[in-house]
């Protein structure tokens, strides 16, 4: 297992590219009506989860909300399994039974994919409770949006985590909008991070368009948690380029705002940093991007050619032994 600070930044950039190209391909396939239900894209927010993954060990627990494709990809779930899930195929990461909002991957310690806003925040607290119960030094990373911070389950979970001193990091991916409702219209506080203070949890604000800042600040806090178990809260300021979901034209925000964030693109920024430091050439970047596009395209072919979950297994996953109720 590599210590986090030595994980290759070029590799991390390549992961951000994969996420972006995957999401673009998902968007195209959704419009082609190959994907059902809801579909929430992560484009613009890539530095958040990739920065977090760069700061953690593969056996740390990770759990997130419904904008979850990137979290699975960042954790190591294959693009094939991710795309197949969107297509509802048996080869999907949740066997086609979860869909876009319910990705799970036990092997890669990705604990979902949860679509009731903030209902997974207590689950994260429980996962961290289990780590402490077993005297492990694992950390649980719990991602959610700015829309989650006004739910009761969020508040109850933070209180419990602080009370029991659990090794969990609550990561608010503040993309400024809960669906179409801006933070100013939803939240009485001016600064989201101040929510943490109410529970005596240390809070940090990080620029979510800056991969290195996300990784380094998280790595520092994670090291402290592994030494002495406690919760922490991160407000990571980011932006989604697309609407809330595929059906949302995002008319509640201005072109100027979107352009401002696009100019500060997390992929462009990390690329520029690496190029400046002569760790990456343009040719290398182009090759990586081509590879990401090819992986995303291949995942569509894989998903198309995969089998549907069999009808005769309909009752197999309601109870562990499939017993009738």
């Amino acid at each position, binding site marked *: 297992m590599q210590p986090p600070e030595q994980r290759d930044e070029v590799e991390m950039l390549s992961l951000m590219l994969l996420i972006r190209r995957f999401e673009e391909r998902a968007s195209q396939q959704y419009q082609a009506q190959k994907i059902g239900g809801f579909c929430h894209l992560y484009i613009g927010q890539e530095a958040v989860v990739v920065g977090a993954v760069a700061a953690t060990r593969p056996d740390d*627990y990770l*759990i997130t909300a419904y904008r979850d494709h990137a979290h699975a990809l960042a954790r190591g779930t294959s693009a094939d399994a991710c795309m197949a899930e969107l297509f509802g195929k048996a080869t*999907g*990461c*949740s*066997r*086609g*039974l*979860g869909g876009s909002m*319910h990705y*799970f*991957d*036990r092997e890669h310690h990705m*604990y*979902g*994919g*949860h679509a*009731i806003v903030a*209902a*997974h*925040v*207590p*689950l*994260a*607290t*429980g*996962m*961290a*409770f*289990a*780590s402490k*119960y077993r005297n492990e030094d694992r950390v649980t990373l719990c991602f959610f949006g700015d829309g989650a911070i006004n739910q*009761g*389950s969020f508040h*109850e*979970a933070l*209180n*419990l985590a602080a*009370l*029991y001193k659990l090794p969990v990091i609550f990561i608010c991916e503040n993309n400024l909008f809960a669906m179409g409702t801006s933070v100013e219209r939803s939240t009485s506080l001016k600064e989201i991070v101040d929510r943490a203070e109410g529970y005596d949890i240390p809070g940090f604000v990080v620029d979510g368009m800056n991969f290195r800042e996300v990784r380094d600040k998280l790595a520092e806090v994670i090291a402290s948690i592994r030494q002495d178990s406690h919760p922490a809260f991160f407000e990571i300021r980011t932006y989604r380029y697309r609407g809330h979901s595929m059906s949302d034209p995002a008319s509640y925000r201005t072109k100027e705002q979107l352009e401002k964030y696009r100019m500060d693109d997390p992929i462009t920024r990390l690329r520029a940093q690496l190029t400046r430091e002569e760790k990456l050439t343009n040719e290398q970047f182009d090759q990586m991007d081509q590879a990401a596009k090819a992986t995303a395209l291949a995942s569509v072919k894989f998903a198309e050619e995969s089998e549907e979950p069999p009808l005769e297994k309909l009752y*197999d*996953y*309601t*109870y*562990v*032994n499939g*017993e*009738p*109720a």
Partner: protein
Amino acid sequence: MREITYRQALNEALAEELERDANVFLMGEEVAQYNGAYKVSQGLLDRFGPTRIVDTPISENGFAGLGIGAAMVGLRPIIEFMTFSFSLVAFDQVVNNAPNMLTMSGGQFNIPITFRGPNGPAHQLGATHSHATECLYANVPGLKICTPATPRDAKGLLKTAIRDNDPVLVLEVELLYSSKGMVEDEDVELLIPLGEAEVKREGSDVTIICYAQTVPLALAAAETLENEEEISAEVLDLRSIKPLDMEAILNSVSKTHRVVIVEQDRPFCGVGAEVTYRIQKEMFDGLDAPILRVAQEDVPMPYNERLEIAVLPSAEKLIAAVKKVCYA
């Protein structure tokens, strides 16, 4: 065998399973230092320590969810609701997270959790504290539900629930915590499978189907029917609502051909509605009378004692229903 209380039986089940498996822990309001609101967890903190017997703030949604998360990564939580009326605060966790996880994850994450506590009307607690939640939860695929009525069933079913790999609700009865009954000695491993009903009294003229707090009521009514009406009633205790033991139900009905269901929940979409449907589907021609149900009246529970009695199922109401199906 020895005689112990329903409360003691539950306490023994908890202690034995905590002893047996280090992954088992008990969490809830007042379970540790206070020894349980109803003293079901008496002495467990002293014996197992604060890591495994965990007091919570009044935060049902939070600690129910905490339990589910801990279950996702291998622990076997027992979550106590001080009453199942308070489980409604955690409804999203109990209904949306615990039972859905196995399906949503394509079989990767089962949730071996036990939710337990008193359920159903007690005495003059008013509308908010008197909910019989079994019919709400029985509607949810992925949950299992048992409803012990005797100390023996309480111990055997709770132990089974804790070892089960799916989410199980153990719906206890507040009014029965101090009731006594014969239970196997402590050195005997008592496990009662979920989904097995039990004939609590044999009879030949009519089947009374009951569970939880309607079991003592049904037994008392059967006694009266025998003595005063010469009607021989078979009392069948479901013990589990889900899975439902249709075999035991049909066995009894094929003998008696008449059925009254006495349930502690409300009539509309209540447990008895499902049982009635299943019986008529399987043996319409085997019935000599329409199936009758005795449930609560369909109103929020009033505080006033006389009105509360009027709302609840009673031996009188049950006897009247039995006489009706027997055309007596």
